[in-house]
């Protein structure tokens, strides 16, 4: 049984003529790491909001652990199961102190106080923020803030985490911290991840990639396969990482190298 199932989903924003999403079919299994990539305006953030019932589809169905998001009575049940991390680290932190912010979601779903303490400590440990419990949230770096947001979500023990461009506003260091955290949570803790991004490098660590353009899923498959179509990806305004360009160039010149997705991979292949 799949964790998330989208069937022929269509969604149009109020007052717009063109639907933001058309004919979306997508399934995510437990423990999977799925990346959704697309340029600005491709509908990927809209898709994220549909998963969390911040929006409801006009047509088609979205099933989260077999609950249809059209079911108004179960909306909090779904939100508990689909944790969301947003782009702007500042605009999703509610509390002044780190531990209070992690506890926010748990307080909302009325978890008993002793259990909140345990879960907060555990979540902070998973994202590597142990020792920061009583720090002020606005003094954290961008990467730390985003990891704090992730901690706030995993403390609620959702069945999957949707991250909507979590690294878009971070510096390279913060970006690395966040991606490593996500990767750790998926590989070591078996947490289902749906990463929405326009950085192909980040998507390359996923199990499966969906490419979105103009509200449609145009391509899907394992990253190595999807990223082979460099010309197509460039045509839909995605930045192709330099590594892939180099690897592709070498390949077209007749060099025999395997599928390359990371700088380390390229170094290994060449040296």
């Amino acid at each position, binding site marked *: 049984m799949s964790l998330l199932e989208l069937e022929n989903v269509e969604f149009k924003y109020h007052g717009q003529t063109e639907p933001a999403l058309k004919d979306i079919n997508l399934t995510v299994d437990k423990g999977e790491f799925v990346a959704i990539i697309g340029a600005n305006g491709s509908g990927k953030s809209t898709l994220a909001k549909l998963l969390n019932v911040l929006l409801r589809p006009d047509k088609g169905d979205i099933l989260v652990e077999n609950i249809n998001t059209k079911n108004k009575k179960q909306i909090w049940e779904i939100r508990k199961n689909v944790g969301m991390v947003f782009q702007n680290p500042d605009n999703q932190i509610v509390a002044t102190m780190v531990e209070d912010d992690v506890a926010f979601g748990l307080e909302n779903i009325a978890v008993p106080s002793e259990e909140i303490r345990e879960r907060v400590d555990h979540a902070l440990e998973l994202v590597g923020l142990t020792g920061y419990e009583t720090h002020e949230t606005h003094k954290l770096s961008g990467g730390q803030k985003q990891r704090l947001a992730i901690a*706030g979500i995993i403390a609620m023990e959702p069945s999957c985490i949707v991250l909507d461009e979590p690294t878009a506003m971070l510096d390279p260091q913060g970006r690395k911290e966040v991606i490593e955290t996500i990767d750790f949570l998926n590989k070591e803790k078996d947490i289902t991840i749906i990463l929405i991004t326009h950085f192909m490098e980040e998507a390359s660590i996923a199990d499966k990639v969906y490419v979105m353009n103009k509200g449609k899923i145009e391509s899907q498959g394992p990253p190595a396969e999807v990223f082979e179509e460099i010309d197509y990806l460039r045509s839909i305004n995605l930045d192709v990482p330099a590594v892939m360009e180099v690897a592709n160039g070498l390949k077209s010149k007749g060099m025999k190298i395997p599928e390359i997705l990371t700088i380390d991979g390229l170094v290994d292949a060449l040296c």
Partner: protein
Amino acid sequence: MLTDITIGQYVHGDSVVHVLDPRIKIIITIILITSLFLIGNFWGFAIFLSFNLVVIKISNLPFKKVLKGLKPIVFLVLLTVILHIFMTRGGEVLFQWKFIRIESEGLYTGTFMASRILLLIMFTSLLTLTTSPLQLTDGIEYILKPLKKIGVPASEISMMMTIALRFIPTLMEEAEKIMKAQKARGADFESGNLIQRAKNLIPLLVPLFISAFRRADELALAMESRCYQGGKKRTRLHIMNINRRDITALILAIALAVVVSFF
């Protein structure tokens, strides 16, 4: 840097006064302030002042900081004294020059009122000096709880206060950024008269407001996706416990209030 400001005037510490339950501290403050208005002569004030000094001593507060907190009201105090000296009539005439006349009653009432205001501000500032804003909001929420029955949204009020506190540094930072950006475009925030300067703030305030609204929108989404449902029953990470120490402090405060009210 604008961002270096501390919110409120809380001085971190771990004295007995600091660790008292915030609810008890708020109630004690209310009781003693009420008693301050019942005091009838300077002996009462003397006792109250010595109590104040003892509290400052045990909470390890720098005395200078407490005095600094009185600065903004100096003008008000002086005005009170002056008005009373020249306007209040009664008692012996102490000084007369043409139409200006000072009588003993005026001098007495003036200093009496001034002492009352100074003690009032000094004592309430002890509450904010020894209680973090976060604890204060928590305390206020609990105290307002009984009013929920008559429709006062106590938990929403406390959530609003928490979020306001949380966003002060963020918005400060933003204001600073916008100011720099506008200065780079030739905006002038420093010269001109008062009206001119107020007008010059428009290029700062408009972007700041727009961004604050955008933030509010995003924050609301983030809160909703973390299952925030307004005043619905929530649990807390930190539970406030009233122990023997708090009860003792409360009894002491009530005793003091009764004693000084007799003066």
